[in-house]
């Protein structure tokens, strides 16, 4: 298989069971999801040689269901990016437009599905990392409710925020994959019984008659005109199918990006501490004591964006700054959660553009981290609130670039958003 878009870090086949709901289907797996015997790099030099001795729970569920895994997909290093350009294995290009990024951090997974290199893919979504590339590559991506899918084997970036989620060409396909991976796992204490014996695929009907769709004004106003136009057309389609569209306000989301990055970076600073050269990365040959050796290994084996986030996260947790940053961010998170809860008292789902912008050109956004962080404005509040969301292709820009619609549901409301999204795809 020619990997025209650099969607894969490692192309290697892992055969699944002979029969099962995914028999005959191919799945591409993001390279931060552990595969026994197949290297799992997280897009980092630090883990370039790391071969896990165990399978992530989702990987066993895929192979038990008969799926064939075709390879490990490229990603922003440790999931830290929105464009898949921070990978140590080179950028992935967008199959829709070679000059543009596929989004991130699960850019390889979205590109593999968009290019037809795999029937389905798994990504992980910490602040939009499934939904963003789904939107930019014109495919469907689901970020499940926190606790619906086991994270056992998912290399942590920000463990209180992230979930593994499916990508597929259609809503029904994504729902089929979600049915296979959802449900409690004894290896992940944060999983819940919801999702056991689910049949999300059966819910993908596009039946929105009588559905109330809330539109948070704060998350639409900042979007590009072209994105907004496609979004408004999509809302019309919902109206035409019998849904009621209502404006709602989520004042807390103004603090979403700031709170998200403080929490994600703080957790990352701790989650990535184990990569110290003792067991991963280049080791030995350094002068000095252990601490100096750890620092050398980390300086050489981690990329700039990862180091930036580790440093900022370490700072946010430090004595004297903990209350000002980490604690404040947790308070903002609680507020965001409350805001969403309040909104779902009045509406069934919330709709926003998945990304406020069209896919940028390669190299356009990497030098301005703040601009890159702001691209996540519509996706990160969902992770802060632990809610389920889906990105479904809503149409195209004048240049033919895909625009995604994000539908957000209440806790464990996967069926509702899958049903509603199926109207478009």
């Amino acid at each position, binding site marked *: 298989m020619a990997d025209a878009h650099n969607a894969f870090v490692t192309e290697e086949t892992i055969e699944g069971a002979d029969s099962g709901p995914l028999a005959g289907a191919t799945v591409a797996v993001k390279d931060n999801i552990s595969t026994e015997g197949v290297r799992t790099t997280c897009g980092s030099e630090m883990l370039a040689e790391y071969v896990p001795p*165990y399978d992530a729970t989702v990987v066993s569920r895929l192979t038990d269901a008969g799926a064939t895994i075709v390879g490990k997909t490229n990603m922003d290093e440790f999931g830290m990016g929105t464009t898949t350009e921070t990978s140590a294995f080179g950028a992935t290009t967008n199959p829709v437009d070679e000059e543009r990024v596929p989004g991130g951090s699960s850019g390889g997974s979205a590109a593999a599905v968009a290019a037809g290199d795999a029937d389905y893919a798994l990504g992980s979504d910490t602040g939009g990392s499934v939904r963003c590339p789904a939107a930019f590559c014109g495919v469907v991506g689901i970020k499940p409710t926190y606790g619906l899918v086991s994270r*056992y084997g998912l290399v942590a970036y920000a463990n209180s925020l992230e979930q593994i989620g499916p990508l597929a060409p259609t809503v029904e396909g994504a729902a089929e994959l979600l049915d296979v991976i959802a449900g409690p796992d004894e290896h992940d204490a*944060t999983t819940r019984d919801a999702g056991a014996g689910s049949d999300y695929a059966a819910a993908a009907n596009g039946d929105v008659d009588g559905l109330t769709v809330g539109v948070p004004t704060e998350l639409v106003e900042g979007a590009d005109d072209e994105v907004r136009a496609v979004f408004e057309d999509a809302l019309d389609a919902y109206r035409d199918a019998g849904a009621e569209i209502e404006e709602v306000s989520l004042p807390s989301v103004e603090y979403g990006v700031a709170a998200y990055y403080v929490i994600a970076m703080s957790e990352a600073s701790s989650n990535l501490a184990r990569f110290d050269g003792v067991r991963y990365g280049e080791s030995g040959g350094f002068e000095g004591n252990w*601490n100096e050796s750890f620092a050398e290994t980390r300086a050489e084996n981690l990329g700039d964006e990862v180091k930036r986030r580790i440093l900022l996260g*370490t700072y946010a*947790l*430090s*004595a004297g700054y*903990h209350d000002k940053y980490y604690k404040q961010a947790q308070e903002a998170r609680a507020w965001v959660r409350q805001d969403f809860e309040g909104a779902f008292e009045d509406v069934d789902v919330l709709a926003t553009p998945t990304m406020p912008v069209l896919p940028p050109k390669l190299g356009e956004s990497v030098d301005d981290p703040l601009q890159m962080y702001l691209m996540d404005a519509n996706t990160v509040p969902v992770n802060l609130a632990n809610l389920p969301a889906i990105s479904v292709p809503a149409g195209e820009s004048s240049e033919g670039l895909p625009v995604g619609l994000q539908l957000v549901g209440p806790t464990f409301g996967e069926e509702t958003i899958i049903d509603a999204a199926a109207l478009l795809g």
Partner: protein
Amino acid sequence: MSTQAATEDLAAVIGLEVHVQLETDTKIFCGCSTDAADAEPNTHTCPTCLGLPGALPVLNEGAVEAAVRLGKALHADIPERTTFHRKNYFYPDLPKGFQLTQYDAPICQDGELEVRVEDRRRDIGITRAHLEEDPGSLQHVGGSIDTADYTKVDYNRAGTPLVEIVTEPDFRSPDETRAFLAKLEEVLEYLGIYDAERDGSLRVDANISMVSADDLAGEVDDAVLAEANRTEVKNISSHKGAQQALAYEVTRQRNAIQRGREVEQETRHWDESRGITVSMRSKEAEKDYRYFEEADLPPLEVSDWKERLEIPELPDARRERFREEYDLSEEAASKLTSTKEVADFFEEIAREYDPDLAATWVADNLLGELNYRDMAVTDLEGRFDEFTRLVELVAEDEITEKNAREVVLRGMLDEGETPDDIVEAEDLGKTSGDEVQAAVEAAIAENPDAVADYEDGDEGAINFLVGQVMQKTGGSADPGQVNGLLREELDE
């Protein structure tokens, strides 16, 4: 401590931090066995305790139960829910770059433990006790930590459940710390959550400050403690070690102060082989561990666990009951409650036989002989039935006390044989009544002079006759019984 104190009486103020390995089958956050004493390095490991990328912790509720039981024994408060935090620091024995521990919701808070030192009762306040995971262990090759050629890491120990018990600064002497630690171990053993035999099962850090004795009248003033320079002594691994290390520190600090020198605020390392403390690093900046809550471990509701979980009768209560119920001396009651195994064993025997006999046999004979051999009751595991049989032989008058003690018990401990085998092999079975009677009659017939002396009122003569009978029966007759039989014959 200011130097003007040199002329005053000085007193020690000591607090302890005690790390105890909890005796659970599996580690605190994974299913690996904790029993790795003789295992090859890194064989009792899995993705979770190795801290492999993507692996997640799942709380072993058995460890939480053990800690709640301890909390109950320490009369501590148990929170509504228990949470875990990450303590972030780099060290090669720490597989994840952070340790999972408890921060603002420790499993036990505000407890106390009563200890006795030379008849003085002291209530030692327990500030908190929290659960955490043990790191791995390091082996430095070709030198010490600073000079080694390289260092090997073994993660078998990583993830062993620990409870860290922090006391108030309530100790006023090294003796008190020893008594406290001995008592704590006793309680932990009674609770069945501790194995003293395991290497590294008890690790103690001590904080010691010398203050003016006048300042110690009544409650200790926090301000006094804040002003006194505190020394932290690490690497203590037994109650005896605590007493020795702290006695050394008291002397060292008292000497320094009396010579007008300042006691530095520092961390010192107890070198048990040399019997001294050594300065590790002085005035180290306080570490910033960047604690934050672990999202991978949802809070566990434990509000009703204290009621739900039973704990056995604890040593103090049992000692008191033994004294009353079996009418034992304080010394005997203490010996018989020194471990739960001994106490349980005594009660088992006392139920069937005379409690006095049971007490003598367990407290004096058995523990005495074990002690002489540097053995513990646990070394007899699986052989309690044999010992019960020995007591039965004595109680049923089938062998003499002397033979039971000197031949049978010693043979059991030294040769590992059963009491019945020893009795048979050594022919210790008591001579039957007829044989003794015949021997008595023969002794009287053969020793008319002694009989005459007895009849003349010479009590000493009876002892001679008893000796004769014992000789004839090969020592297997009971001397008291022989004495009675002789008098019966002679007084007729």
